[in-house]
């Protein structure tokens, strides 16, 4: 089949099962967009390339499929950078296809030329510059393979403009042949035996679940393992949903704003089963005193994560899809009554949890952010996808929204990217049209991609946007209150922006809630309505997210609060 490079791209996407692309056109991708037009390929035109890449990320996290992005050369491609970095650190599979200036213009500082491979090298799993049209099918095949296998991540394919116009004899490769990467992460079962042995010896084990469990769709295995052990379990921010909120022994997430019980359990456990996580500083607190009494077992696909931040005692290297089913079988094959063995410990931590739940105090007539999120959570079914932006509202969402399933809590964990929320929620809705999608955002974050209300309206995407409106860059304000003598340097947002009008200007309904009782009288009706809506919820300015482990402190040196 003799076709041009642009057709080859789209044919290849079809072969990879891609049903939608998020993108934005421009000079270097005109031919690509022309073929897209002729083929009627589904494409969501965002209003900013950053919106496109976060949307593809939200789509990928919600569905488990690879998110696909198109952008033009130069500024189009550089607008993707934040989104690619966000996806990379959270191990989200993306394929971003960017136009590059034509072959004769490369390296000449031509119009809209930027070294996209140079710029994206540190934030991609791999990248390609395609100068020869004949290599395009192979490169696309490899890109999808690399993005979705192993530890997933973003791949950039930068395609010289003339490649899209060049005719090639098209054949899509059946197999990927890469000398340095085969995508097979089967490990050594002896390492699992050692882990089982450690569990047999333990008295105070804690299961610690990371985003890897979500990304590998292994939540069911984790649930079975936790049930078998009847041991307490905690998770990272990205692990939320692996274990259903409300499960006995589930302590909520751990770390800087994690639960008292989870952090204390880490400090007192004699065995930590860390599964698909990377020991971020947000999770460990003072790293040298993380889990001082525990033997640490690390189940991990990426060898470079083992001993990177925390030295572990045992490792089980390999894909969780390989290791966890074996671990489950081996645990079920043991005669030991784990539940009886671990019961005193489980009771100790559940008691801590009961004594120090995530809390907040009611005050008069105002809406407290935590109360708001709790109420939204109550009004949502178990299949609701909760998305967040970044800041205090993100932490409150993690604390008070009951996440019941994996891939149902989407948040920028590793980068903490403000502006992630709205486009990601949009992408999640595109990927899961039957599920309800709710975004929690702040009056700061929402402005960093609010242009996507236009995309949401034009595509009739039913996303409910809850703006936790505290008139401040809340998380910045919290640190300024605590550590910078209450100097609100450039963090106050007492402007004239009317979020209701902002949404309405772009074709999304807007509502405003100011009084506590409206959580009962107004909120249920608004959430039940068809179609996208922004709900501007006015909350007090000075509210701390607690507990809090101040930077560099041990996990048991939490500042507590509430009641």
């Amino acid at each position: 089949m003799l076709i041009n490079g642009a057709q080859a791209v789209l044919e290849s996407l079809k072969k990879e099962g891609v049903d939608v692309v998020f993108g934005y056109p421009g000079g270097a991708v005109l031919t690509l967009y022309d073929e897209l037009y002729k083929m009627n390929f589904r494409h969501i035109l965002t209003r900013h390339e950053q919106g496109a890449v976060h949307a593809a990320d939200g789509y990928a996290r919600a569905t488990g499929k690879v998110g696909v992005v198109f952008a033009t050369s130069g500024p189009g491609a550089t607008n993707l950078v934040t989104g690619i970095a966000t996806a990379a650190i959270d191990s989200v599979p993306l394929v971003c296809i960017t136009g590059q200036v034509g072959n004769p213009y490369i390296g000449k500082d031509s119009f809209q030329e930027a070294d996209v491979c140079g710029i994206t090298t540190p934030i991609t799993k791999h990248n390609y510059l395609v100068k020869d049209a004949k290599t395009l099918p192979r490169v696309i095949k490899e890109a999808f393979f690399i993005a979705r296998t192993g530890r997933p991540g973003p791949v950039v394919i930068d395609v010289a403009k003339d490649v899209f116009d060049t005719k090639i004899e098209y054949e899509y490769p059946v197999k990927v042949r890469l000398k340095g990467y085969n995508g097979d992460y089967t490990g050594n079962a002896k390492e699992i035996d050692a882990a089982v042995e450690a569990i047999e010896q333990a008295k105070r084990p804690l299961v610690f679940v990371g985003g890897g469990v979500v990304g590998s769709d292994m939540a069911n295995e984790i649930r079975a393992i936790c049930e078998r052990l009847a041991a307490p379990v905690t998770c990272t921010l990205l692990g939320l949903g692996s274990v259903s909120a409300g499960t006995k022994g589930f302590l909520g997430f751990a770390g800087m704003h994690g639960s008292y019980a989870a952090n204390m359990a880490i400090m007192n456990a004699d065995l930590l089963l860390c599964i698909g996580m990377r020991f971020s500083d947000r999770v460990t607190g003072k790293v040298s005193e993380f889990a001082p009494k525990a033997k640490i077992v690390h189940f991990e696909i990426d060898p470079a994560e083992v001993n990177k931040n925390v030295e572990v005692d045992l490792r089980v290297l390999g894909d969780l899809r390989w290791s966890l089913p074996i671990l489950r079988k081996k645990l079920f094959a043991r005669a030991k009554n784990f539940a009886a063995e671990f019961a005193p410990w489980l009771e100790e931590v559940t008691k801590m949890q009961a004594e120090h739940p995530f809390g907040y105090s009611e005050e008069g007539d105002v809406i407290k952010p935590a109360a708001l999120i709790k109420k939204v959570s109550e009004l949502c079914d178990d299949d609701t996808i909760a998305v967040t932006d970044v800041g205090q509202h993100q932490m409150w969402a993690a604390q008070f929204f009951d996440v019941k399933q994996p891939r149902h809590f989407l948040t920028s964990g590793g980068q903490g990217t403000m502006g992630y929320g709205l486009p990601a929620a949009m992408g999640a809705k595109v990927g899961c049209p039957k599920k309800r999608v709710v975004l929690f955002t702040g009056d700061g974050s929402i402005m960093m991609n609010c242009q996507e209300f236009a995309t949401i309206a034009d595509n009739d995407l039913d996303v409910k946007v809850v703006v936790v409106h505290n008139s401040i860059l809340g998380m910045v304000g919290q640190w300024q209150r605590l550590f910078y003598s209450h100097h609100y340097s450039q963090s106050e947002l007492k402007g004239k922006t009317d979020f209701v009008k902002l949404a309405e200007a772009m074709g999304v309904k807007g509502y405003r809630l100011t009084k506590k009782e409206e959580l009962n009288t107004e909120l249920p009706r608004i959430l039940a309505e068809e179609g996208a809506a922004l709900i501007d919820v006015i909350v007090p300015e000075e509210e701390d997210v607690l507990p809090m482990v101040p930077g560099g402190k041990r996990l048991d040196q939490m500042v507590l609060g509430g009641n």
Partner: protein
Amino acid sequence: MEKYLLAVLVDNKPGVLTHVSGLISRRAFNIESISAGYTEEPEVTRINIVVSVESENELEQVINQLSKLIDVIKIVNLSKAESIARELVMIKIRATKENRADIIDIVNVFRAKIVDVTKENVVIELTGQQHKIDALVEVLSEYKIIEIARTGAIALSRGPVPVKNM
């Protein structure tokens, strides 16, 4: 700080060197030297890296992070295997009628070679282990060194087995 010599086999594709050097800088690894060249297989480039690390753990990080690069085919720590390491240096040095004989003596003692001579200078070439090269540079530092070019160390394992089969 311990030094290790890593032989890194990579795909001979555009972008490879960006990927390798980008990784080294963003992970803040300490690199003493890095050199790359063709091998017996046209599709494979060999990068020789001398890395300096505080601990075995840090070395493991360097190797694991490099291994993650898609275009890295294989990494062998040649400091652990029995191996022969060599470096090439070229030194341009001011040489006058008065001191030329002294310089030639030094060159002979080190079994180095003079590869270029003018009225004002000589260029000396030496291949050897790093400490030998360091010693030559040290001795010549009494004279006026105009410039030095060093390749960084490269190495092969002893015996018939190539790195790709190790």
